[in-house]
C-alpha cells in the first residue's frame, strides 16, 4: 500500500512539475479569490481583519476543489482510468498517493495565501503554532475528502460541476473549525483555539480512514 502510494504521488507530482498548474494557476487563483472577497465586502479595514480567517479558509476550500479537479483531470480519459485500474495498484495506495499529492499542493497554496492575508488584511498572529497545527490537520482532511469525492465524480462527463457540489458541504466543518482556530491564533485565545483542533483532527482521521476503506469499491465504478 505505501509503496503504491509513493508511486502514485510521484506520478501526480511529476505531472504537476511538468505542467505547473498548481504553481501558475491555483496559487494565483487563491490570491485572486482573497482579493475578490476584499472587493465584495467593501473597504472597512477592521471588518476585513475580523473576517480574514474565514476568507482565508474559503479561499483554501475553493483551491482544494481546483487541485482535486486537476488531480482527476490527469486520469480523465477512459483509457487512463482503465489503465490505473489494470495496473494492479492497491486502491488504498491510489487514494493515499493522490491525497498526498493534493495535500502537498495545498501546502504550497496556503503558504502564499497566508502571506496574502498578512499583507492584504493586515493580520498578525499571536500564536503561530496554533495556526500551523490547524493548517496541517485541515489540509489532511481537505485532501482526503477531496480525493474521495473526486473519485466519485471522476468518470463522469459532469465532473466539473458535480465535484464542487459534493465536496464543499462536506468540508464545511473545516471551514468553520479552521477559521475559528485561526481567529483564536490571531487573538491569542489559545485554549479556545485548541478546542477547534479537536474537530479538525478527527475530521482528518475519519476521512483518511474512509478513503482507505472505500476507495476500492469506488474505483470499481468509475
Amino acid at each position, binding site marked *: 500500500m505505501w*509503496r*503504491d502510494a509513493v*508511486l502514485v504521488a510521484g*506520478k501526480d507530482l*511529476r*505531472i504537476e512539475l*511538468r*505542467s505547473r498548474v498548481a504553481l501558475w494557476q491555483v496559487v494565483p487563483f487563491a490570491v485572486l479569490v482573497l482579493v475578490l472577497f476584499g472587493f465584495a465586502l467593501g473597504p472597512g479595514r477592521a471588518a476585513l481583519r475580523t473576517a480574514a480567517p474565514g476568507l482565508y479558509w474559503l479561499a483554501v476550500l475553493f483551491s482544494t476543489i481546483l487541485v482535486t479537479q486537476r488531480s482527476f483531470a*490527469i*486520469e480523465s*480519459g*477512459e*483509457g*487512463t*482510468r*482503465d*489503465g490505473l*485500474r*489494470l*495496473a*494492479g*495498484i492497491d*486502491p488504498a495506495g491510489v487514494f493515499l498517493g493522490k491525497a498526498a499529492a493534493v495535500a502537498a499542493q495545498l501546502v504550497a497554496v496556503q503558504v502564499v495565501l497566508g502571506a496574502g492575508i498578512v499583507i492584504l488584511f493586515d493580520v498578525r498572529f499571536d500564536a503561530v503554532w496554533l495556526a500551523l497545527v490547524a493548517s496541517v490537520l485541515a489540509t489532511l482532511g481537505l485532501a482526503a475528502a477531496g480525493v474521495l469525492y473526486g473519485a466519485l465524480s471522476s468518470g463522469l462527463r459532469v465532473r466539473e460541476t458535480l465535484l464542487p457540489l459534493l465536496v464543499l458541504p462536506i468540508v464545511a466543518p473545516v471551514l468553520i473549525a479552521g477559521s475559528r482556530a485561526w481567529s483564536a491564533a490571531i487573538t491569542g485565545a489559545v485554549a479556545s483555539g485548541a478546542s477547534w483542533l479537536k474537530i479538525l483532527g478527527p475530521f482528518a482521521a475519519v476521512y483518511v480512514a474512509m478513503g482507505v476503506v472505500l476507495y*476500492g469499491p469506488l474505483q*470499481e465504478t468509475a
Partner: protein
Amino acid sequence: MASAVHLRSAVALAGRFPALSGVDLSVAPGEVVAVLGPNGAGKTSLLRACAGLLPVTSGEAVVLGCDLRADRAAVRRRVGLLGHDASLYDELTAGENVRFAVRAAGMPATRVDAALDRLGLVGRLRRTPAGRLSAGQRRRAALAVLVARSPELWLLDEPHAGLDASARSLLDGLVMEAAEAGAAVLLSSHEPNLTVPLADHVVSMAGGRVTEVARGPRRPVLSSVTGEGSASVA
C-alpha cells in the same frame, strides 16, 4: 491446465445495454483466439468484460482462475488490455508511462528500456510527452506497456489499427512470443487476413454472442504466413 478464459452464457451490461448477451467462450493458456464480427457485435465489450472492467451480470465467467462475478479486482492486475484508446498519461513521456506501469505491477524497472526499444520508441519519441505522439506512436507506447508487464492474458482490441507495416509484423511477433510463453491472447479485429494467420481459433461474434467458432491455422505453419502477411502490407 485450467482455461485462461471461461465464459458460459455470460451476460454483461454496458450501461443498461446487454453488450454481451450470453457468450460461450474458452481460451486455454498458450492459445491465440481471434474475435471477428461486425461493428457493434460486442468485441470490445467481450475484452473489457474479460479484463474485469465490465460487470458480468449472469452466467459463468472465470478468468485466470478468478470468478469475475465475485472479485473483478483480482483479475485486473494480471491481464493486459490494449483498448481502442491507449491508456497513457498525456503529460508523461512514453518512457515514464511504461515505467509507471511496470513499477505499479511491482516489477523491476530494467524491463522498461527493453520494451521501448522493442517497439521502436527511441530517440525523440522517448522524450516526447505521450499527448504529442502520433496515433500509431501512441499505440506503440501502449503496446510497450503490455510488453513490459507481460501479463498472463493479453486482450488486444483491433491491435493492427493505426500501426504501420513494421509495427504490425512486430506485433505479430509479440503475440507469437506471448503465446509460446504460455500466455493466452484474445484479439479482436476487422482484418481477418492479418489476424487469422495468428490464431488457434477464430471466433465470430454478432449481437453480443458467439455465433461460430472455427479452427485457425496451427501456429507451426504460421511463421511463413506472418512473413508473407507483413510483406504484402509493406
